[in-house]
């Protein structure tokens, strides 16, 4: 797949136009940034792409897959994964189980097989667990495998969320403020992981308030304000753009 594309996407809630005529690309293998002041509509963009809300106008596609108007689960099954602004883990389950849930779209066993408890079901579960452990190793979280998800520190919980999102090898990954509330060291750690994921071929959309973090990682940055795209380009171009400066600092 070459890119996840949005063309002239708009979303209004009642009378409020949260997103207006937005077009952007999320190319595979690259990290694309999306920044903007609070209330600019960034999370709405993610919700529209992932099907939680239906766009009022416009088209969304991932390669040839038409995503406009599809259900969230269908969009997820097409290979679009996301993380959430607020951490949403399954709190009373272990870290390993939280990651294993992420493999759902790779399940090949039928509902009937699961109901009967056939051997294929257990083999599949063991395979998922093995893959989950591999992910835990990669993220240096192996010692937390059996720990309760909500007993972890904030930074570690973010990692679990990340692992769950990439478990089923998505083509595109939408990150909604993934390093909010982290210190520089933790954030840089995650940043390195994002680079590695992009190197693996995943197209990443990075939404963040931490502007320097975004400038560091992203080749292309889009800037939103009050639902519209006001600028896009490289980090330097965007930093010098007068519209962007005005949006952030006021005039």
């Amino acid at each position, binding site marked *: 797949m070459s890119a996840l594309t949005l063309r002239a996407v708009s979303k209004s809630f009642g009378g409020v136009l949260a997103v207006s005529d937005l077009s952007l690309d999320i190319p595979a293998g690259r990290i694309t940034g999306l920044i903007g002041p609070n209330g600019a509509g960034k999370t709405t963009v993610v919700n529209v792409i992932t099907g939680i809300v239906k766009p009022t106008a416009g088209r969304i596609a991932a390669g040839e897959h038409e995503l406009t108007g599809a259900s969230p689960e269908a969009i997820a099954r097409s290979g679009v994964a996301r993380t959430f602004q607020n951490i949403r883990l399954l709190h009373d389950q272990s870290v390993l189980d939280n990651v294993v849930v992420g493999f*759902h779209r790779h399940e090949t066993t039928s*509902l009937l097989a699961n109901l009967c*408890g056939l051997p294929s079901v257990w083999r599949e579960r063991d395979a998922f667990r093995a893959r989950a452990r591999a992910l835990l190793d990669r993220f240096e979280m192996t010692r937390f495998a059996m720990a309760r998800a909500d007993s972890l520190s904030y930074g570690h919980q973010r990692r679990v969320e990340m692992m769950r999102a990439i478990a089923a090898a998505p083509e595109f990954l939408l990150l909604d403020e993934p390093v909010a509330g982290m210190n520089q060291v933790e954030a840089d750690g995650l940043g390195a992981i994002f680079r590695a994921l992009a190197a693996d071929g995943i197209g990443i959309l990075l939404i963040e308030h931490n502007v320097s973090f975004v400038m560091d990682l992203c080749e292309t940055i889009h800037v939103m304000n009050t639902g519209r795209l006001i600028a896009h380009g490289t980090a330097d171009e965007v930093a010098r753009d007068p519209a962007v400066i005005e949006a952030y600092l006021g005039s």
Partner: protein
Amino acid sequence: MDLLLSYLPYVDAICIGSGYALSQFIALRAGLFSLGSAGFASLGAYTAAIALMRYAVPAAWAVLLGTVVATVAGVLMSVPLARLRGHFQAIATVAFVEIIVSLALHFDHFTGGPAGINGLPKLVGTWELVLFVAAVAAFFAVIERTGIGRAFGAIRQDDIVARSLGISVARYHRLAFALSAGIAGLCGGLAAFNSYTIEPQQFGFGLLTLAIGAVLLGGRSSVAGPIVGTAIFVLLPELARPLSDNRFLLQGALLILVITFLPQGIVDGLRRRRAAAGSGRKGGPEIVRTPAA
């Protein structure tokens, strides 16, 4: 030996109650706010009873038919009900239970009306009931550890996250309705052939309360919970005469106390205490004993 035999009716009651409670349990596991087990139980019981009494269907087939009817009803009801959430779904399922009671009361040439159906043969004994509960408990324990259990768990805790992982909430809710209704219908059919008569009111609000109460009292995380909860509800009033005269008061007070002070239920609460004592004050993250799936 006689003393032992005199306890059999209690075992029967606990088994039948556990069946209804397990039906409620699987609905809650999947994140359904459905309280409709009593209605599906009624469908199963009446179908089995009518099949045997009117159409001379052999008992085993009659119970099977009852189960099928209840399951189909569950799948049909899931279509409109799955679109509701929270309180709204709860109210709709309560309404469903009452509709079944009304229908059973009304179509009296078929169902015997308020007097119900009498003279049912007692073909289901304690052994069959114990086997039934054990089989259902084992079945639920198994599917909890499969992909179905993983999906249910995700949907139950956070259905938006579940959908973002590609889990079709509608599909799994249909499955949960089917399972819940089927088990309730099977239990109803077995109960019909265990107790000589069935009448509409026994599948009303009282049974609804018992089913949800047993699960909340006993615990919602493992199949042991509903069974323990049912046992307490059945046995506690029998401990003393004043208790059995005020059965409802006891149940009501238990419900309020448990939901306030021990919301996870007895089985889970005990497990939590033991785990906390085990992992102790080492300061490490709390360990989850066994993987769920």
